[in-house]
């Protein structure tokens, strides 16, 4: 018997697993989402993010483990839970032949909202996502960014206690993406708990209080974005490039690694690129110069979530 979740936890998963005959899509993951926070799932394609989302918004039953959303078991209280969720699915699921306004009003009916209240709420939300003047246009005439904003507005109809966004900005241009981000930040300020999946590092860094990195059905790292960067890759990264152009490339690389010893916490080699993770990049560059390690390019930059991501999940292509 699983103990009920503490009062502040909106989602609590323990050893959550989804298995298909041949594959395990989610392999015993444990996480908790606290009230009011924005919680991100980061990971390459096929890592199990969407499967986790679908189990959380109760359309996919878990194979084993426990999953409580809003203190209710997803296996027994799917309808009650879903009445309090806002969901932005990975694919847009709008009625393209209907107008923007009709999409909202019709969707509100699934939550048993009276027509009059549904219409009023639709106006408020259209304004929130800046679509008021497109209200009478058919959805098929909207841009990708507008459709995504409409998906967000639609998800907010039931005044959800938890908003789940599966890749909210994939495929959008930078302007549209920033607009969606701005709306999500506004929502966060009003206290709406959010869970989102993304494979954009900037998105996770810009929106999330805490993230987990998923890879091959498991959680491989967890924490606030800045802390993940600090603990997994340090503060700065020195990138050395151009070994292959040198006659004694392998020796130079070995020398570079030797020179970095003590200053770099870790290193990674990707073909022609040597990454040195360090707390003091200036000192490291100086040391390399003193030791006579010269390559075509040596750059110093701040470590980012992307370094963590690639370090944890590797640079192999995922499809």
């Amino acid at each position, binding site marked *: 018997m699983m103990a009920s979740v503490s009062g502040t936890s909106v989602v609590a998963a323990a050893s959550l697993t989804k298995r298909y005959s041949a594959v395990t899509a989610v392999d015993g993951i444990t996480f908790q989402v606290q009230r009011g926070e924005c919680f991100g799932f980061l990971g390459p394609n096929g890592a199990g993010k969407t499967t986790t989302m679908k189990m959380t*918004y109760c*359309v996919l039953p878990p194979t084993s483990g426990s999953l409580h959303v809003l203190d209710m078991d997803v296996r027994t209280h799917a309808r009650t839970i879903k009445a309090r969720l806002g969901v932005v699915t990975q694919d847009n699921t709008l009625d393209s032949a209907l107008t923007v306004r009709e999409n909202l009003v019709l969707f509100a*009916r699934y939550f048993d909202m009276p027509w009059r209240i549904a219409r009023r709420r639709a106006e408020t939300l259209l304004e929130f996502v800046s679509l008021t003047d497109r209200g009478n246009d058919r959805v098929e005439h909207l841009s990708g960014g507008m459709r995504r904003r409409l998906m967000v507005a639609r998800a907010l109809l039931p005044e959800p206690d938890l908003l789940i966004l599966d890749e909210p900005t994939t495929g959008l241009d930078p302007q549209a993406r920033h607009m969606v981000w701005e709306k999500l930040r506004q929502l966060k300020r009003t206290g709406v708990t959010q869970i989102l999946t993304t494979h954009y590092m900037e998105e996770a860094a810009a929106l999330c209080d805490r993230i987990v990195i998923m890879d091959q059905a498991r959680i491989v790292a967890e924490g606030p974005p800045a802390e993940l960067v600090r603990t997994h890759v340090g503060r700065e990264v020195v990138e050395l490039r151009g070994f292959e152009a040198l006659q004694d490339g392998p020796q130079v690389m070995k020398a570079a690694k030797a020179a970095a010893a003590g200053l770099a916490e870790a290193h990674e080699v990707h073909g022609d690129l040597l990454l040195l993770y360090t707390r003091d990049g200036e000192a490291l560059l100086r040391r390399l110069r003193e030791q006579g390690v010269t390559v075509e390019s040596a750059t110093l930059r701040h470590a980012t979530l992307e370094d963590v991501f690639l370090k944890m999940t590797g640079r192999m292509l995922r499809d």
Partner: protein
Amino acid sequence: MAAGSRMLFSPRGALRFWQRNAFIFRRIFPESIAVNFLEPVIYLLAMGLGLGAYLSTIGGLPYLVFVATGMVSTAAMFGATFECTYNAYVQMYYEKAYDGVITTPLNVEDVVVGEILWGATRSVLYGTIFLVVVWIFGVVRSPLALLIPALFLVSGLMFSVIAMTFTAVNPSIDYFTFYFALFITPMFMFSGVFFPLDALPPWVRTAAWLTPLSHVVSLSRGLALGDLSARHAWDLVWMLVVTGVLFPLPVMLMRRRLVK
């Protein structure tokens, strides 16, 4: 208990999805009704004036009367069948409407049942329009014809359930051609709409008896002409039993398709 609660549909949820379809249908209502008036008129002119000129009577009835009283049933069948094949598939696969709806308090079962109810509604709507045209042509001979819309509710549910079952397992929209070519069209031809089945060899009659449409045609003709017998009660029982037995099938198959 847990599994049981997932498998049940809620009448309210099904009604909400029915309302959704009705809401969308409203937009094309005038055009769609106009087309549905036109189609039977063309059929009746061709059959009654064209074919009817060569055939004097069938079973004591003018050919136009014979054909028209049977054809109302096929109009109703097509109403339900198009809704639960092409329309449902586009909603499910291309528009991904079902995926959006099941994130709300509605579940897959509600969606499937709502879609079937809407198919039956269109069956009543289209069949009744055809009936009105037929009545204008002076073919209806009994006030019992007022019961025909109720018949179309039952037959609409039956054809919707059958079509949704196919839709739930259909791998691609192209395969609906097979559904129509191998099931709907032969049934259209061999269910007693264009010629009486009594004159056919016994094995053909048995085969025809197995088709859902033959029972609807038999009943609609009986009601329109006020000529009912015990055999019509069996037609109704046949339809109710088949509908009831098959009903869980599309619900189950659609859950398997959408919830992976």
